[in-house]
């Protein structure tokens, strides 16, 4: 507090050094929040010190402060990425390397990654000469460091210096990368594997073939599956770099092997990257290789793999070459999809349900009616609510192709069942789709079948559901208009004001809060306001203070005469209520509505 006092004094004085002095001292304050603050204002400190002292005093100090909390180090690593001007411009940018180098060796991955990101950023500000004199040696030091943290950091730095150095240095960099790819520590091999694709992109095509391909092959057959699975992604990047005629010989054998790897995690990765892979290898290989591979993944013995593949069904089909798309889907993919609809694992089914509707746009009306519709109907009756929800949430795709009427008979029981599910999260999810459904099914169908559901949610015993139901009503009114609201929902909502349960009476108020805006002045003044005002004499204090809050909320919708004549007296009365909270909210409303 002493410091705070003196800070005040300083602020009043004219000494411009004072705030900076505080910032510098707080770099080592015991309170981590203050240190973090100071680090975030590091540029202010540096500006005050000038470029010379920043280089000779501030940076050496920061280089050794790696004892700090991760949050502070993360902020520091980030700051240093845009510090070039503050140390005197590109000519002096290498002064930033020592602190970033020490940050690149800490154990916390987020800090290390941020340090690497900043290093990559400032590497661009190095002149070609400085890059070789200062930056490349740092990369080499990290790459041959004792601890694997520094070696993992090095992996991310090769690709930024490679394009800008001489051919001798290039050869050294390639050599270092090779070494890291066969490091003893799986952590380092993983880091190298994850940067392999990026590194391949900056290499000359000949070196991609002579250097990268062997590394790729080796990593893809690493003894640890955690390394092999990362090679899959690298394979995708490499495939985009190679001319079509080389793909078959250089990349495909390894990728085929990955798709059949003994470890499900590797196969999962192949499934997960399938659309990227498909784009990278082009239509011919897709037809000959990827289609059978995809079929296998959809039939994989591990549910995780099937689920990942199921997620890709739509995108894969979309990207099939046009000339044979329909044939491939109908003869190869659809049979597998049919099996997945009755998979034993619910995650697989629900992954499929989230994309299967998308197939209808690809296959057109007739095929959808004949082949897909039966599947949708099966999924709408699935025992797992998530599956049903996923189908319902994607109805728009089908609507475009065959119109929703085809489905509505099956849809309704599914919706009703979800609406009454014992798990409130399921009920919440279906509520969120109501506006969408209402839009697609039309007002008539809605009034007939769904309206009562929407009203029933208003008296759900879980608050989150009541709240969502309120919000849902607002969205429905936005869709169907104020007149519809006045005829269908407003009377029911206002009817609840006389309910014996105070929670339901409060729901009326919450609904009015949400609806007044979309219903407009007339309905609000004529129908809602009297009910609200009447509730100001409710015996439950919670209802009364919600009346005050409600009035504050709907005040802007009302005209000023209603405000003065009707709202003001009620609020003034509430302001003298014996309950503290009621008083508080009444006074707040009076002041916000400027009625005082």
């Amino acid at each position, binding site marked *: 507090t*002493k*410091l705070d006092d*003196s800070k005040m*004094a*300083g602020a009043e*004085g004219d*000494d411009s*050094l*004072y705030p*900076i*002095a*505080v910032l*510098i*001292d707080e*770099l*080592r304050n015991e309170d*981590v929040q203050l240190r973090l603050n100071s680090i975030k204002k590091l540029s202010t400190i540096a500006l*005050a*010190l000038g470029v010379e*002292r920043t280089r000779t*005093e*501030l940076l050496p*100090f920061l280089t*050794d*402060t790696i*004892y700090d*909390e*991760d*949050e502070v180090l993360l902020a520091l690593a980030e700051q240093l990425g845009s510090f070039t001007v503050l140390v005197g411009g590109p000519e002096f940018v290498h002064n930033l390397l020592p602190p970033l180098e020490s940050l690149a*060796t*800490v*154990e*916390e*991955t*987020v800090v290390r990654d941020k340090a690497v990101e900043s290093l990559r950023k400032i590497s661009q500000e190095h002149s070609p000469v400085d890059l070789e004199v200062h930056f490349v040696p740092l990369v080499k030091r990290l790459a041959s460091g004792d*601890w*694997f*943290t*520094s070696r993992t950091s090095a992996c991310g730095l090769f690709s930024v210096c490679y394009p800008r150095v001489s051919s001798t240095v290039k050869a050294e960099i390639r050599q270092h990368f090779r070494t890291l790819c066969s490091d003893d*520590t*799986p*952590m380092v091999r*993983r880091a190298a594997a994850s940067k392999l694709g990026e590194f391949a992109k900056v290499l000359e095509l000949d070196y991609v073939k002579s250097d990268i391909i062997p590394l790729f092959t080796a990593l893809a057959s690493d003894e*640890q*599956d*955690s390394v092999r*699975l990362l090679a899959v992604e690298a394979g995708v990047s490499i495939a985009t770099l190679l001319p079509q005629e080389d793909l078959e010989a250089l990349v495909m054998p390894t990728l085929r092997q990955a798709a059949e790897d*003994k*470890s*499900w*995690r590797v196969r*999962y*990765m192949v499934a997960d990257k399938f659309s990227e892979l498909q784009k990278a290898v082009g239509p011919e290989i897709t037809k000959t290789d990827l289609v059978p591979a995809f079929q296998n993944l959809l039939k994989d*013995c*591990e*549910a*995780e793999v099937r*689920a*990942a593949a199921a997620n890709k069904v739509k995108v894969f089909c979309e990207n099939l070459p046009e000339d044979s798309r329909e044939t491939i889907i109908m003869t190869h993919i659809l049979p597998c999809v049919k099996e997945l609809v009755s998979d034993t694992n619910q*995650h697989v089914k629900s992954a499929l349900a989230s994309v299967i509707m998308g197939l209808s746009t690809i296959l057109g009306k007739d095929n959808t009616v004949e082949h897909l519709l039966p599947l949708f109907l099966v999924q709408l009756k699935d025992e797992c609510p998530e599956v049903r929800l996923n189908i319902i949430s994607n109805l728009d795709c089908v609507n475009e192709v065959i119109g929703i009427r085809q489905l509505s008979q099956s849809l309704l029981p599914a919706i009703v069942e979800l609406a009454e599910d014992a798990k409130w999260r399921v009920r919440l999810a279906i509520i969120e789709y109501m506006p969408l459904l209402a839009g697609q099914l039309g007002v008539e169908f809605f009034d007939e079948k769904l309206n009562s559901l929407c009203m029933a949610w208003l008296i759900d015993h879980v608050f989150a559901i009541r709240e969502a139901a309120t919000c849902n009503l607002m969205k429905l009114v936005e869709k169907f208009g104020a007149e519809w609201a006045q005829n269908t929902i407003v009377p029911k909502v206002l009817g609840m004001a006389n309910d014996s349960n105070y929670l339901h009476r409060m729901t009326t108020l919450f609904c009015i809060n949400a609806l007044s805006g979309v219903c407009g002045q007339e309905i609000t003044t004529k129908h809602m306001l009297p009910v609200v005002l009447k509730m100001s004499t409710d015996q439950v204090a919670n209802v009364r203070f919600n009346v005050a809050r409600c009035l504050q909320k709907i005040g802007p919708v009302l005209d000023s005469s209603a405000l003065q004549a009707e709202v003001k007296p009620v609020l003034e009365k509430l302001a003298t209520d014996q309950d503290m909270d009621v008083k508080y909210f009444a006074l707040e409303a009076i002041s916000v509505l400027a009625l005082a």
Partner: protein
Amino acid sequence: MLTQVDRGGGVSVAAPVSHFYRCAASTAASRQHFSDREESAAAPPVTSQTSWIDSAFLSLRFSEIDTRKINNSFLRDHNYATEADIISTVEFNSTGELLATGDKGGRVVVFQREQESKNQPHRRGEYNVYSTFQSHEPEFDYLKSLEIEEKINKIRWLPQQNAAYFLLSTNDKTVKLWKISERDKRPEGYNLKDEEGRIRDPTTITSLRVPVLRPMDLMVEATPRRIFSNAHTYHINSISVNSDHETYMSTDDLRINLWNLEITNRSFNIVDIKPANMEELTEVITAAEFHPNQCNTFVYSSSKGSIRLCDMRTSALCDNHSKLFEEPEDPSNRSFFSEIISSISDVKFSHSGRYLMTRDYLTVKVWDINMESKPLETYQVHDYLRSKLCSLYENDCIFDKFECVWNGTDSVLMTGSYNNFFRMFDRNTKRDVTLEASRENSKPRAILKPRKVCVGGKRRKDEISVDSLDFSKKILHTAWHPNENIIAVAATNNLYIFQDKVN
């Protein structure tokens, strides 16, 4: 990368804990500070007194035993010991430079091996307190009305990744990742106050000072880095770090969870043996461990005496094992206690990964992972107790969970027994020895004398009768230096460190 959806409801999102932990109870301890025992009252619960004794064992060739000397450290040299002081786990790190113990009071004490010095060459090998910290505190689970003890069940070191050391410690419910790091510099120089901390008049500031780092006495800090909680419904009995350096598993009575070391709010259940109806429960998991270099393979042992080997490549859920190691029961030995004494209390992969060692109540067994039908070798730890099972059942000793360890070359096995005895078995010569960890019997630098338990009627001098064994003095936890003949033996509240003669 793993996308498996949590199953079984055991795993849930923890309280909103950020990625970063601030150290509320970090214990900073300088080594200078520790050497002065009078002053150390505030910091360590342990005092260290090192003495030398002539002793006997630990050579791979037992014939040389008598010529060996042993360095023996007594720790916790109290005349009385509280329950909280009882050591509950002992573990060397991968180089053997550090040794960690955990106790029932939730404390972790880390010892560091003395560096070689020219003046006192014999001091090399002595372990001194390096860092002490409170890892776990007693807690209360209000939802289940259960007390959660602070007792450290297991400690596992992580492979070293930078200049700091990392270990996982666990009690029944929560695993914590600790960082133990050194600091030898401290910043100096403030703008707004002078070196004595007096506030300067702000108007006198004419120039800015940037703090400078100056050398200082070495400080060792222990900081909690991650807390992995809310994933276990039952009691955690094992943790094991994977050779991929990225994941580890935690095992309770019925489930095994896989964690990423960097992610605390989700884990993946890989084994679940909980029957739908708990009344059908016949078996619990007693221990589990990863293969030392195949990242996909792990084993777990059960209370029915079987060991299952699982391959995580095959499936995300490893409820179906790849191999089942089980020895058919000998019908002639069958008794009321058969099932209890066949329960496996510990399972350990050999350093090579080729063999498994298991400990049940009376024996240590070595299994070849390529042979499931029977163990390769069986060693009797204290067969003389077979006739006393009834009284051991009555005093609950029969449920003691003895651990077992390999030496660095997988040629000698060590495990504990009662009466402060511990046993070693040489797999090549088939010789074995019983040694005693006790202060009364070991003088500095003396050779440890082999002990003998008398089974028959006539008792020779130096022999101890089965009836006079003290069952309250049990050695459950031992550790063997990864590549030297140094062992650590926890005897209730004392930690003994023995090693081969140095000079």
